[in-house]
């Protein structure tokens, strides 16, 4: 391999944030009805470099700096979507959705059910546990999954971030698009202009025979690390990345768990009352007689996200937690 070849290979490995940005830029170039609005977008490129350079490239009509008025930006997004545009409202932090919950839950989500009207609105936010304390690190995916009318995407790789935002921008449903803080700089290859990732199709990140781990977002990478560690002890883990949480591809999880007879569901979000519980319940209902072990859940303890790094570490589920649950699943019910 020449140096040039090596550089080309390196340049294709872009960050998740860049992949999202590229997907958005490609769609904006092909569809003039797409505009993006939020705070600090035009010059700064967003707080997560998620729209870097799009301001000068597309102009102030299409990359709009808004006041810190979440209700107004989302309401304007809903109304503009009803009038034929495809707005992307970028909240920077998903936590700021609290200032627009009525606009998201009571307006955007319900329009199609009432009026059979497309609402091609994307609401993007960066989410998940990191430093910065309790008010900037909420995990809201379960909230939004509990609202009929919203789709929820939570990519774990650059390729999925790009492919999912492109699909969202060609659809006609309101989409909550959540990108984890700790994945912002994650590098990987991403697809080309026509590589779309469908909603509602989980992917098997690692095939395995002994235990299925169903997960999404930042936990996908942790599950893969746990799987490598467990492989050293002869435990063969299959890792499923859900990619979208609404729709939720339970069929792929069911097929896998029927084969492995053991299922661990891993989320960073609180173990209590979350998406993991929904997956676990659905599989317990449909596979009760076929499983060799109870479905186990990995998730955060029930506390606001703390500031001190030692407390944050104590709350955040890691690869070791997944590994522990997989071993527990292997012990329960004896050898498969």
């Amino acid at each position, binding site marked *: 391999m020449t140096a040039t070849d090596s550089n080309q290979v390196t340049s294709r490995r872009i960050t998740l944030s860049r992949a999202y940005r590229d997907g958005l830029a490609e769609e904006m170039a092909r569809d003039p009805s797409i505009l993006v609005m939020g705070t600090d977008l035009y010059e700064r490129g967003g707080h997560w470099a998620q729209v870097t350079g799009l301001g000068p490239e597309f102009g102030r009509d299409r990359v709009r700096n808004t006041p810190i*008025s979440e209700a*107004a930006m989302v*309401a*304007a997004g809903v109304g503009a979507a009803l009038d034929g545009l495809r707005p992307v409202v970028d909240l920077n932090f998903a936590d700021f959705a609290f200032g627009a919950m009525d606009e998201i839950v009571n*307006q955007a989500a319900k329009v199609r*059910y009432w009026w059979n009207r497309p609402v091609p609105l994307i609401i993007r936010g960066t989410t998940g546990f990191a430093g910065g304390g309790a008010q900037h690190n909420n995990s809201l995916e379960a909230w939004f999954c509990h609202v009929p009318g919203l789709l929820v995407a939570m990519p774990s790789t650059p390729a999925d971030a790009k492919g999912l935002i492109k699909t969202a921008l060609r*659809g006609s449903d309101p989409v909550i698009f959540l990108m984890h803080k700790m994945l912002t700089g994650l590098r990987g290859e991403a697809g080309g202009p026509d590589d779309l990732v469908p909603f*509602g199709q989980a992917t098997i990140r690692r095939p395995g025979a002994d235990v299925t781990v169903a997960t999404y977002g930042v936990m996908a990478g942790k599950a893969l690390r746990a799987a490598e560690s467990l492989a050293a002890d002869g435990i063969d883990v299959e890792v499923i990345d859900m990619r979208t949480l609404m729709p939720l591809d339970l*069929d792929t999880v069911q097929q896998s768990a029927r084969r492995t007879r053991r299922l661990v569901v891993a989320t960073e979000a609180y173990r209590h009352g979350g998406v993991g519980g929904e997956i676990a319940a659905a599989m317990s209902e449909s596979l009760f007689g076929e499983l060799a072990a109870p479905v186990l859940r990995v998730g955060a303890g029930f506390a606001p996200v703390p500031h001190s790094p030692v407390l944050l570490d104590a709350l955040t589920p890691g690869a070791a937690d997944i590994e522990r649950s997989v071993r527990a699943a292997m012990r329960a019910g004896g050898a498969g």
Partner: protein
Amino acid sequence: MRAHTDITEALPGTGIDLGETSSAEAASWLDRMLLIREFESTAGPLATAGAIPGGMHSAIGHEAVAVGVGSVLRTDDVAAAPHRSHHVALAKGMDPGLMMAELFGKRTGSSGGRGGHMHLADFGVGFFGSNGIVGAGVGLALGAALAQSYRGEPRVAAGFFGDGGANTGRVWEFVNLAAAWQLPLLVVCENNGYAVETRIRDSMAGDSIAGRAAGFGLPAVQVDGQDVAAVHRAAAQAAALARSGGGPTFIEALTYRHLGHDIGERGQYRTAEEVAWWERYRDPIERLRAALVARGDLDDAGYQQAAERARDRVAAAVSAAEAAPLPDPATVTDGVTATELNIRTGS
């Protein structure tokens, strides 16, 4: 400017000035106001009797606000309304049959029985919906104004809300963004003096709602909401400004609802004398009728014919709604999203 009009500080005179308004246009206002009055007078008792399920918010008394603003809106302009919305829908041109069937919860209603009286909409005539959340309709109109501005179309959007909504934060976020971006939006506050049963004087700081709006740097006017010609003039000026790229206008219309906040209300928060005063001296339909009579444009027979036309249309809407099929219960989870969700409802 004033918070609202008490009977103790009555506006001068009851007459209204039609100015240069043509006889045909003024007659069309009367027709539309009578249609609203008849629709509300018919639907209210049907709701009380249980033929129409759920509650209802009657707009009797508010007719001039909706018709005055609606008179300057074209079919492809947009209007969005709050929970009290039938007058806005009818003023924007929505078919009373579609509305009545929706109130009855029938398959032929504007959302097939899925919405009800707080979620009427007809995008074909630019009615972007009633809304159960106070102030929220202004936000949808704001978005439509953004889309219109983005595409460079000379269309406008009107967002209606009430004095109760004037104490929500979202409304002022909307007004600020509309003013900051100079969007073609008419923000129309129907100030009827009461947020449900709370008097505006007891709940609002400052002198007036329009006074608050003026702080956002857009034209903010207060008009007599029981005078359709005055509302029309304010709206015409606002729409002309918006269509020419001059940005939004805030219109506060002082009005009064003759009935309670919702159908069947037995409130103790206002006196019978107050209600009677508004009905006797500030009925928007009677004021328009008197002005038309004074100008020689209308006689008793003409008025009765107009009222008869309204009765016929509403009676036909009720008959059709009564005869219409109910929605199929098996469809209750259909069409939540365009994307197939494949939600499991059991094992």
